[in-house]
C-alpha cells in the first residue's frame, strides 16, 4: 500500500458498512462461474441497487457450447433469484467493436446515479479495461462521484487450460497509448497461470527489459503455476532481460504502486501486459489510464466453462473484495 495515500479496500460488507452511499448503479457480467453473481448478491443485501446492467459475453463457437449454455442458464436463474431482472441482461459478442464497447459503458453512465460499482469478476479485460478508463475520464468528472470495483474470489480454479485459442498480441480497446510519447523503456507483465501467446511476443518485436509482476502472497497452487509460467517465459532467453517483483494478488493498489515505482512516476514509459489475477490487472489498468500507456493482451476466444469453481467465503459472506477508486469525487489512484 502506498505510504502517501490511503486507498480504501476490503470485503464488500465491511466497505458498505463504512460508507454512507445509499444507492449504487451496478455493472457486472453474467459468466459461467458461480462467483459471477456474488458481488451483485452481496451488494443487494447491503445497499440499494438502482440502475443495473449485466453483460452476458458470447464466446466464439467451441466444444464447450453445451456446458456454457447450461452454466449461463444457471447463472441467469441465480441472478433473478438474487433480485435482478432478466431485462438487465444484455448479450454482447466477445469481439464486439470498440465502438460497441464504448457505447455500452456510455449508456450505462448516462443511466447511472453517479455512484458506480463495476464488478470485474467474470468480465473479460477487453471490456473492463475500457470501462474503467471511460468511467474515470468521463467529463464532467463531477457526474461520477463514486466508483468502486468489486472482485469475488472462487474456491478453486480448473486445472485445465483456463482459456483457449487466443489471438495475436494487440492493444486492449482504448489502450493504444500516446503516439507522441517517448518509446517505452520496459514491458511490465502481470504473471498469471498461462502464457497465452506471451512467449511468441517475447521473441518477436519486444526488445524491452521485462518486469515480471509475480502475484505474492498467493495460494501455494497458484504460486506454483505462476512460477512455472516464469520458467517457461525465461526458457531459451537471456535471463538478464527479466526482473521479478512481487505484487499482491488481491490488492490492485500494490500493483499500481509497483508500476509507479518501476517507472519512476512514468518518467520511464512502460508497456503493460495484464496476464495476472484480476486485482493486479486492475492496478495495471488504473496505471495505464492515468499515464496513457499501452496495454497489450492476447484475447482468448473461448473461456473454460468451469474457469473457477465455487465461491470463497469470508466471515460467512461470499469473499467479495471492494476497491474504492473514487469516493465523493476524490480519486485514490493518481500518477
Amino acid at each position: 500500500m502506498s505510504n502517501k495515500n490511503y486507498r480504501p479496500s476490503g470485503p464488500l460488507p465491511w466497505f458498505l458498512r463504512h460508507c454512507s452511499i445509499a444507492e449504487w448503479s451496478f455493472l457486472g457480467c453474467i459468466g459461467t462461474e458461480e462467483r459471477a453473481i456474488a458481488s451483485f448478491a452481496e451488494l443487494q443485501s447491503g445497499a440499494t441497487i438502482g440502475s443495473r446492467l449485466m453483460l452476458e459475453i458470447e464466446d466464439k463457437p467451441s466444444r464447450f457450447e453445451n456446458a456454457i449454455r447450461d452454466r449461463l442458464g444457471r447463472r441467469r436463474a441465480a441472478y433473478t433469484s438474487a433480485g435482478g431482472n432478466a431485462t438487465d441482461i444484455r448479450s454482447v459478442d466477445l469481439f464486439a467493436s470498440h465502438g460497441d464497447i464504448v457505447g455500452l459503458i456510455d449508456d450505462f453512465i448516462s443511466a447511472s446515479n453517479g455512484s458506480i460499482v463495476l464488478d470485474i469478476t467474470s468480465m473479460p479485460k477487453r471490456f473492463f479495461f475500457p470501462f474503467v478508463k471511460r468511467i474515470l475520464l468521463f467529463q464532467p468528472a463531477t457526474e461520477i462521484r463514486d466508483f468502486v470495483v468489486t472482485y469475488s474470489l472462487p474456491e478453486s480454479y480448473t486445472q485445465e487450460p483456463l482459456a483457449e485459442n487466443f489471438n495475436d498480441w494487440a492493444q486492449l480497446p482504448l489502450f493504444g497509448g500516446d503516439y507522441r510519447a517517448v518509446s517505452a523503456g520496459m514491458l511490465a507483465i502481470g504473471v498469471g497461470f498461462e502464457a497465452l501467446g506471451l512467449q511468441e511476443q517475447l521473441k518477436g518485436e519486444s526488445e524491452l527489459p521485462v518486469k515480471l509482476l509475480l502475484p505474492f502472497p498467493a495460494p501455494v497452487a497458484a504460486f506454483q503455476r505462476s512460477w512455472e509460467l516464469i520458467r517457461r517465459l525465461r526458457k531459451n532467453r537471456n535471463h538478464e532481460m527479466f526482473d521479478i517483483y512481487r505484487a499482491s494478488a488481491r490488492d490492485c493498489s500494490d500493483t499500481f504502486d509497483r508500476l509507479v515505482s518501476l517507472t519512476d512516476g512514468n518518467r520511464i514509459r512502460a508497456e503493460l501486459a495484464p496476464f495476472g489475477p484480476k486485482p493486479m490487472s486492475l492496478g495495471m489498468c488504473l496505471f495505464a489510464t492515468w499515464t496513457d500507456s499501452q496495454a497489450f493482451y492476447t484475447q482468448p476466444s473461448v473461456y473454460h466453462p468451469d474457469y473457477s469453481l465455487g465461491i470463497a467465503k469470508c466471515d460467512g459472506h461470499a469473499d467479495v473484495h471492494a476497491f474504492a477508486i473514487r469516493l465523493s469525487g476524490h480519486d485514490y489512484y493518481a500518477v
Partner: protein
Amino acid sequence: MNYDTNPFEVLYVTDSPDPRLFVDLFSDLPIQFSQPIFQLGNVVLKGTQGCGKSMLLNLLKPEIRLAYHKASVDFPVPSELGRFVGAGINLTLSGALDIGQRPVIGTTDEDEALFPLLFGDFLNYFIVRDLLRSTKLMAESPDVFDNAVNGKRLDKCARELSRQDCWFGILHGCESFDAVCKKIDDRIAVYRSFHQFNCDIPEEITSSKTNIGEPIARTEEALKIAKVIDEDTPVVVRIDQLEKLYRSDILRRSLGTQYRRIVNKALGKRDSRISYRIGTRPYAWDDDLTVFATDDKLEHLRDYRIIDLDEELRRRENEGTWVFPQFAQDTFRRRLKRVQLSPSRESDSLATIFGKQPSDKDVALEYARNSRASRASYVLQIKDDWPDDWKEFLLETFGEDPFDAKLAAAWALQSGQSGKKGVRLAEPPPNEKNPPWRSRKPWRKERVRQCLMQIAARCAQRQKWSGSRMILALSAPNISVFLSVCHEIWDAFQRSESRKPPSKRIDAVRDGIPANVQTVGIETASRHWYHKIPELPSGHDRQRFVDVLGRKFRKWLLDDVAMSYPGHNGFSLTVEELEQCPPLARFLQDAFDYGDLFAVEHTTKLRDRRRRIKWYLSPILSPFFQIPEAHTKEPYYTSIAEITSWLNEAGVVIEGIDPAAGQPAKRRKRKTDSSQRVLFGDDESREAPR
C-alpha cells in the same frame, strides 16, 4: 571444454538489446536466394512461423545496419545491393487495426465504405513518416550508409513534398523537414486519439484522404528531386504479418478483407518508384488477391515476385540442391564460435558433434536387446498357422538381426505382383544370399522407419533419434526448430557430463555427443514444440487435432504388420474437395502456416489424375508421437467427411462445418491377427505420450 555454457542458450536473438548478438548469430545464407528483397520491384516474402522471414526483413531497417557497423562486421547484403532506403509499418503497434472499430459517420453502410479509405490514408502517413525517419537516421551516419543520404537537402525535399497535390493541401506551407514531420505526426496522433475516443475525427481528415501508395511514391520523388538520395537508390517499404488484417478475430473479417485489398492496390499500381516487401505466412497470401474497388487480381511476376523461404529450404528429390543443411551448418558454427568452441572439421561441425545415425541393424538390436526369444514371435507378429519353416527361419534370423527378420516377415505377408494373399508364405523362405527384402532397395528403404518403429513398440522401447542427418530431417525447413533441438541436446549432454568426475568427462567438440544423449535432447525438443502449439493464435484447437492425427498415424503404422502402407503417417485430399470446404481449408492451412503440419502437392496414384495435397505432422513432432519422420510412399487417401470426423474427435468446432457431416471412413481391413494376444495392455499406442 566449458561444461557450464550452452551455446544455444539464447534461441531468440531479436530479444537481445545487444545488436552485436544479432550480427554474430544471423546467418546470411538465406540472402543468397532472397536478393530480390534488396532490388527494385515488389516482393512477397512467404514463410511459416519461425522460418526467419522477419530476420530477413529486419535487414531493411537502418538500425540493423547501424548495428553491423558498430560491431565492425560487414553488412551481409552484397555491396551493389546495399544502397537502399527502408521504411515500414507494424500493423498492430501502429494502430492501423483500430480503424473500423469506431464509427465515423454513424450509418453502417457509409462507415463500411469509408473505413478502407481511412486505413489507406493512415498507412500512407505512417509509412511516409517512417521513411522520413529512416532518411534522417541515415543522414546522421553517412559513413555507415555509404553517403546514400544527403542530409543537407532535407529541407529542400520537404518543400518539394509539401507542394505535391496528393496531400490535398495538408502539408501546404511546410518549409522545413521538421515541419513536414510534425504535420504528419499531428495527423497520425489524431487518428490514434480518435480511436481511443478522446476526440472526434476532424473534417480536415475525412476530406483529405490520400490515395494508397501515392504519397509514399511522391515522397520518393521528392527525395530524388531534392537530391537527398540518388536516382538509382531504391526505396523499399516493409509490411510484415499481412495476415493479421484478415485472419484474426480482432478485426471483422469483412473489413480485414477490404484492408487487404487496399494493400493489394498499392502493389497493383506497378509503381516503379516504390518497392513493397510483404511478409506473410504461405497460405495466407493467396486468400485474396483482389485489388480494392475493382475486380482485378494481382498477378504473380507482373505485380510482385514471391520468395518462399520454406520452398527454398525444403528438401527436393535431388538432395544436392537442398540448402537447409548449409544454412543449419552456418548457424550452428556461429553459435559455437561465440562461445569459443571450434571443432576440428569446422566445415562440417554438425557431423563432427552429432555423428552418423547408427545402422538400422544396430538400432534394431538395441531395441530388442532385452527381448527374450519367446517375445520374438510377438515382435514379428508370427501367427500360429504360419508354416514351420517360415517360423523357424524368422525366429532364427531375429536372434542375429531383428531388423532383417522383421522386414522378412513383412515381405512374407505381402501378396506381391501375384495379388494373392499368402502366396509367399506358401513357399519356403528364399534360400539366397540376397533375399528380396534386402535386394529390392527401394522396397526396403521405404519401410526402414516403419520397421524400426514396429520393433521398438513391440519391444516396449522408445525410438532412438540421433545423428546429424536425423537432426536436419527433424528440423527442416525451420531454423528455429533446428536451434531448439541443438539446445536441448546440448542441455542433455551437460546434465550427463556434470555427474561424471572431470577426468571421465568427454569433450563434445572432440568426441561428439553420444547417441543416447541426443535421443534425450531430441525428445525434449519434440515435447517442447508440441506444447508450443497452443502458444500461437488459435493453437488449442490445432493441438487437439494434431493429437488425433498423431495417435491415428501411429496406430495405422503399427497395425500394418505387412508394411503395405509405410506412407500412412500422412493423409491426402484432392484440391477440388478442399476448395469446396473453405473453412476446413483455412484450418488446415493455418496449421501449415504455424508449422504444425507440413503440406505439399503430390501425384495421385488414382486414375482420376486429380490434383491432391498431402499433409503430414511437422517432422519435429515425430519423436513426441513416436512415428517416423520420413515421408515415403503414398499417404492415406481421405475425404472431407472423414476429416470432419477427426475434427469432432478432437473437439474442434469450426464455423461453417457441420459436425454431423463427419463420417469415419471404412478403413481397409488390415492383415492383423485379431486372435493374437496383446502383450502390453491395450496396444502399443499407449506408449505415445499425451
